[in-house]
């Protein structure tokens, strides 16, 4: 076994990570970069979080998704609703959004657990037999519609019950506790809650959307998820019909601008750690096996539907988290920031950085922002719009020269696949040789 590295790989990685954080904070605090560039850098890091999620879905799991921007939007609005509500509290508002959203999620979770129970248990066989006899007289889709309606009704019922309970008990306590805290601490907690809510909402919706859609093979799945992104966009444009504060096509305003470089960087760091640890584990291997060969994965005992749903949900969580950070960066959300053309940004980044490379995604996110914004500075006055001529040409050239993307599937430093653990006992001698089988060896 070759072991070239003597210094553990996490040391240089940590040095680079801390250095990068410090450089940007220093440049900002000494006003070496304009506030504009400061927010560009933050946006690049936010995009990296979202793109990491898409890389898990497309690069590692092999599911071509165009719907990522939809989860990004869900995360943005989902977190903004909560923090805005909290800010409203100071002017006598209520925590209604938080309770409703949490209740909705609780409802969905309960339904998922129930559905999982049915899937696992012996009930399933009985149900299938009953369904088979029922199906003879009915079209399959009628049944699917009925079942989904029943599930939605159930989710709503559970949701309403939870809302009631939450508003009565838990939230009353939470409200008092948070108000009692100093303002900065309370703000941090609420922001964290908001981000987590954005992430979990996106993850849950990704899971629900994924269950039926992930049966489709790659290209068809891409189109279906594009449909999902457009649905989210349309829903956001008309969102004021349901929740007035979302303001629909006029754009949601007065979201607290709480996103700072520290928040963004910690979110990015945690996403990278989670992603890296997930990929280089049994779960990650299962996810990658689905990309490599679905049939072979199935016959290795891997539930490919489950693996796809897991990857899609975790990827959706990352998008939602990034969306939440984005919402609090500019303090303004408009559906047009989430139209499907924007959905191609993370896709371009992961393809450009290398499908199946976390390092590539992070580097490409930085380069992407640098090219788009850098061209604005480089180009002479009045020619700024030529950015969108030069940048596609650059993309074309890169794709023609390096189809596998900037980094292919290679990783750097700590992100590389860890070597298998050192063995205490040497492996047994081979039984097979080039010429045949030699006998009497211990297996």
């Amino acid at each position: 076994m070759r072991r070239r590295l003597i210094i553990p790989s996490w040391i240089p990685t940590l040095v680079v990570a801390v250095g990068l954080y410090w450089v940007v904070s220093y440049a900002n605090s000494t006003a070496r970069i304009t506030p504009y560039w400061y927010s560009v850098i933050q946006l690049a890091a936010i995009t990296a979080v979202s793109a990491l999620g898409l890389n898990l879905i497309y690069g590692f799991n092999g599911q071509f998704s165009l719907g990522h921007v939809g989860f990004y939007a869900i995360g943005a609005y989902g977190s903004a609703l909560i923090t805005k509500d909290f800010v409203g509290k100071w002017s006598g508002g209520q925590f209604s959004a938080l309770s409703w959203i949490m209740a909705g999620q609780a409802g969905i979770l309960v339904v998922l657990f129930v559905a999982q129970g049915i899937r696992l248990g012996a009930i399933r066989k009985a149900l299938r037999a009953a369904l088979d006899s029922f199906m003879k007289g009915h079209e399959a889709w009628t049944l699917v519609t009925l079942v989904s309606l029943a599930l939605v009704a159930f989710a709503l019922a559970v949701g309403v019950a939870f809302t009631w309970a939450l508003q009565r008990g838990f939230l009353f306590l939470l409200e008092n506790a948070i108000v009692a805290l100093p303002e900065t601490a309370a703000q941090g907690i609420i922001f964290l809650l908001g981000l987590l809510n954005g992430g979990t909402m996106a993850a849950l919706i990704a899971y629900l959307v994924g269950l039926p859609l992930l049966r489709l093979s790659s290209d068809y799945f891409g189109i279906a998820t594009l449909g999902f992104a457009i649905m989210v966009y349309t829903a956001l444009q008309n969102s004021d019909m349901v929740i007035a504060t979302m303001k629909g096509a006029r754009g949601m305003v007065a979201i607290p601008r709480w996103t700072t470089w520290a928040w963004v960087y910690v979110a990015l760091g945690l996403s990278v750690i989670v992603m890296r640890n997930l990929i280089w584990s049994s779960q990650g291997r299962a996810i990658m096996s689905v990309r490599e060969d679905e049939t072979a994965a199935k016959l290795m005992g891997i539930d490919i539907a489950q693996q796809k749903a897991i990857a899609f949900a975790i990827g959706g969580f990352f998008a939602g988290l990034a969306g939440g950070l984005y919402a609090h960066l500019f303090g303004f959300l408009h559906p047009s920031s989430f139209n499907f053309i924007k959905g191609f940004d993370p896709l371009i980044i992961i393809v450009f950085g290398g499908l199946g490379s976390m390092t590539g995604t992070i580097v490409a996110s930085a380069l992407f922002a640098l090219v788009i914004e850098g061209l604005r500075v480089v180009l002479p006055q009045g020619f700024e719009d030529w950015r969108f001529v030069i940048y596609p040409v650059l993309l074309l050239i890169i794709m023609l020269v390096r189809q596998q993307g900037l980094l292919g599937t290679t990783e750097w430093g700590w992100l590389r696949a860890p070597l298998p653990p050192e063995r205490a006992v040497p492996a047994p001698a081979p039984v097979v040789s080039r010429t045949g089988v030699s006998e009497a060896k211990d297996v």
Partner: protein
Amino acid sequence: MATQPGVESGDGSILAINGVTKLFGGLRAVSDFDMAVPQGRLYGLIGPNGAGKTTVFNMITGLCPPTEGSILFDGQDLVGVDSHRITQSGVARTFQNIRLFQNLTVLDNVRIAYHTHAGYSMVESIVRLGRFRRQERNLSERAQDLLAVFALQDRQLEVAKNLPYGEQRRLEIARALAAQPRLLLLDEPAAGMNPTEAESLMELIHFIRDRLGLTILLIEHQMRVVMGICEWITVMDFGQVIARGTPREIQSNERVIEAYLGKRMGKRI
């Protein structure tokens, strides 16, 4: 011994296929197929190209469920069960055209098979605490041991698609064994091998069976190769059983010779 096609008794067998038919549109790929594989047997399924052998494997592993009939594995009906559950219950297979996880390392190819009993949860792997380190070491070592048996331990960090053909075949068998099967299905393991390589592969298969106490069902359309190692053979042609018996009986069976060589040639011999 029965050299004519007939129904084999399913008593005491690990795999019993009863009256299985598979229709692809109007095509009868397999029709009214019966087979019983006793525990611990090295069983051969042979026949000319297009006889329906691989379809039988696909039906056993749940890739294309039969139109009719039942497939009992250890008394459990496999019809309608998802492929991954069939594997988890103890059936593993290899493929005629090698299907490795091409871009993953040799070690990871084998470790994937341990996923369902990895012994740690997703959360534990994310925080890298608890059972993760212990279990990961444990399953890596098991995978390495298995690779060592197949003389692949020096290749463990290499990407699977870079292996030479013979090693890819061996890796595929190692990966199937990692799924801890009680029944191993090998689909033309000697395809594309020269006679010496095929010979050593057959010895290896024998060794696996003896050492791990597996039942092995083997597809091969090169009759010569299979005759040496199989203890019992079923011959298929056009989706139907045309003969059963020991290799010696099969070799002298008229219908088998006919199926392989054609009617006129068969008569001349």
